[in-house]
């Protein structure tokens, strides 16, 4: 291998690493606030990429019907919950509107917009607007009533959610894979390095999101409320921070980040309904690298995973997954030696 190949591989690794970094941040965020190890994070990636691909063909994406089904279930859950606590009809109606109102609205917009052949950017924005509400609805349906369960139970729930979402993904999107057009076709070359416009967009978007997250957690009251919930759920609740809405907000952010990652990665690879699992798990390896707790370490871990993958596929292409996922074992060894007494129950 000479320097030019190495630099191409490094650039490739960094580009993928930037996307994994987003997913790793989402994983750390969700775990910190809700203690949920969110295996289905990658599903949002596939949903994002496939939704945009279907908008491109001028069809109404399956995500719309999927979202409507989830919203309907969420509304039913609200009504049942409201009746059980004998809430007034007005209050129940308000809760139902809160759960299902936005999903219904954005679905109608998407049904109208799909055949109009809007520009790629508009369709990308619609995709984000459509996939983001999945987060809150999934939290409402699968996790909310189990919020006080152990990490282990929540992890098994995550696995169940992953199963259901993958199967439903197949139902709503079909088995066909799609590759999205690039957002920016420009190419910049510097010596042997060829930087594509899409890579530039990936870097910029990742950077922007990281800065936005930092500002959110450091500067906004909502961000501080989430941090408080992460430190002590009961204490935060006593200060008037609803752990339900903290959970919903966190999952909404996770869905947004997932959908954005899907848009970013869509033009670089063919995405199928079940591609999200492996992509998400790579973000996950990075999050484990960070002990599921540190954002900067998650970032470093993600870049390392990206590099490992690109160099791994150069040396032993059929074993690149083995290399990436096998690397978690030495990482865990390192963590256990560094910090052997983190037992918690």
């Amino acid at each position: 291998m000479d320097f030019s190949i190495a630099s191409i591989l490094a650039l490739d690794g960094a580009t993928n690493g930037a996307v994994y970094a987003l997913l790793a941040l989402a994983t750390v965020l969700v775990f910190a606030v809700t203690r949920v190890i969110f295996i289905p994070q990658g599903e949002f990636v596939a949903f994002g990429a496939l939704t945009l691909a279907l908008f491109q063909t001028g069809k109404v994406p399956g995500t719309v019907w999927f979202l409507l089904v989830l919203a309907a279930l969420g509304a039913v859950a609200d009504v049942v919950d409201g009746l059980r606590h004998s809430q007034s009809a007005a209050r129940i109606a308000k809760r139902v509107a809160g759960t299902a109102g936005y999903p219904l609205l954005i679905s109608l917009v998407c049904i109208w917009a799909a055949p109009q052949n809007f520009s790629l950017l508009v369709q990308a924005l619609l995709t984000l607007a459509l996939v983001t509400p999945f987060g809150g609805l999934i939290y409402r349906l699968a996790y909310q009533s189990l919020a006080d369960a152990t990490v282990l139970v929540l992890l098994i729930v995550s696995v169940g959610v992953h199963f259901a979402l993958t199967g439903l993904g197949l139902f709503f999107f079909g088995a066909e894979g799609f590759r999205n057009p690039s957002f920016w076709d420009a190419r910049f070359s510097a010596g042997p390095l060829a930087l594509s416009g899409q890579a530039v967009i990936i870097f910029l978007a990742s950077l922007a999101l990281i800065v936005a997250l930092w500002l959110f957690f450091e500067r906004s009251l909502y961000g501080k409320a989430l941090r408080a919930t992460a430190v002590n759920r009961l204490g935060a609740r006593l200060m008037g921070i609803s752990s339900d809405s903290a959970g919903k907000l966190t999952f909404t952010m996770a869905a947004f980040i997932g959908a954005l990652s899907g848009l970013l990665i869509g033009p670089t690879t063919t995405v199928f309904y079940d591609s999200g699992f492996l992509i998400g798990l790579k973000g996950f390896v990075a999050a484990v690298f960070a002990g599921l707790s540190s954002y900067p370490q998650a970032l470093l871990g993600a870049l390392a995973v990206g590099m490992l993958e690109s160099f791994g596929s150069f040396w032993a292409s059929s074993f690149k997954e083995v290399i990436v996922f096998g690397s978690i074992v030495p990482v865990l060894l390192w963590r256990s030696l560094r910090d052997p007494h983190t037992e918690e129950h």
Partner: protein
Amino acid sequence: MNWTRFGFPAFAAFMLVLPALPLPDFWITQLNSIGLYAIVSLGLVLLTGVAGLTSFGQAAFVGVGAYTAAFLSTKLGISPWFTLFVGVGLSVVVALVLGAITLRMSGHYLPLATIAWGLTIYYTISNMEFLGKYDGILGVPPITLGGLSLGSGRGIYVLIWLAALAAAWCVTNLLDSRPGRAIRSLKEGTTMAEAMGVSTFRYKVVVFVIAAVLASISGWLFAHFQRTVNPSPFGIHRGIEYLFIAVLGGVGHVWGAFVGAGVVKIIEDELQTLLPKLIGTSGNFEIIVFGIVLVLVLKYAPNGLWPFVTRFLPAKRRVNDWKNAEALPARDKPVRGDLLLDVNAVRKEFGGLVAVNDVSFQIRAGDIVGLIGPNGAGKSTTFNLITGVLPLTRGQVSFRGQPIAGLSSRQIAERGMSRTFQHVKMIPEMTVLENVALGGHLRSSSGTLKAMLRLDRAEERRIYAEAEKQLARIGMVELMHEQAGNLALGPQRLMEIARALCTDPALLLLDEPAAGLRHKEKQALADVLRQLKGEGMSLLLVEHDMDFVMGLTDRIVVMEFGTRLIEGTPEEVQASPAVRAAYLGTEH
């Protein structure tokens, strides 16, 4: 009829004569698959339900067993009876490595490591030239037994179900044994188990290894049942399915694994034909149902299906077979008046906060010493420093003339110091007797293998005799078959004392034994403690309740703000203006 005694043999006999009946081949094949699933799920019952750990990588262990069998018997012509041991050996090595790395950390690192392991092994198998890549290995020979080929569905059926039933028998035996009690204590955190002398790390590894071995055996049977192997049944999704089986059947119940395996296998087949017809295209749509059912089960029936079966069965009651059992070995007791515990200038700093500031005191054999002080005085911290639950910042503690500072709570327990907890720590689903028997852990030695084969009964009888004796000592013998979780707080605290006594301690440390007790219960407790003192036991108690302490102790150490305020007899302490000021404030 005694269901618990005859239920298992009856079920075993029924399952084993089934192939002799004119049952269609389809159902024999189904039952073979159910048996194979159940063997793997049994491991998860132990791991997830009993020990509170989990693994998504069991399918990968199945794969190790299956590929080892297929490769060695097809390519190298080695006898299947030998490849079984190779496959099991490989699984043990992998489980030991993964366990050693992750089990010292928080509980969720093991499942994460097993996800990675499951993916790694799947992609490795799928890309190995000599393992046939995605096509796998064809033409695996049947198992032969004394010239008899077990190639047919009915032939291998007997072997699969013998293995499944034997595994269920071993796991049932294990759960009702010395290592079994240790394993059942893992879910409740490590502090109590370690204080009873259980190496929690060791037993976590043991459970993980057992689960891996069961999976590997299932894989070996699978290879010779299917007569071909390819990577797809060993992927991460099948690993999740095994967990689903265990959770659905009733995680924590041995027979839940069988119920879960049966229900899942039959429903899976139905869904695989029904759903594509409904939807109009083919695909793995059954995972939608599995995913949703998994979430619903955890929400509405976290104990799975098995409890719905046991509801109609009479409760199991332990038969008293330890009447004439020999007593457990006892340690030499210190002579009354000997220096027992010497706490010398111990100090604990949490960052900048000095929680315990160079505290010293001594306990002589046969004394009851009280450690009192206002809230936040550092009593419990001192207590945890002595028992090794917290590491010392500085200072020396010696117990019976030997330094014990820096030892773990397990090592200190081995030297004859036993304790109770401020917040009762027990295993709620075990009976009072079994909880107390956990205290006998260090006085017995039966290992996991011995327990699985039920060769530990003589020692078990001795442990239960001792546990009953200690319960009788504190007047709780009539409650011994009650579930510990059903007791009121008072009896629970007494049970903790019996458990500590069961370790045959030279010094007993009680952390706020009277906290939260009603007046009558306090009197009963005081009577028990006086009786123990009368029998020569030495005690250190941390307490809040003044009346309780004053009437009971020989000497009292008073702490305030992490320092020792005064030490003396109850009368001296009561007369001390400094103590009065500490509790009530001073006049200005």
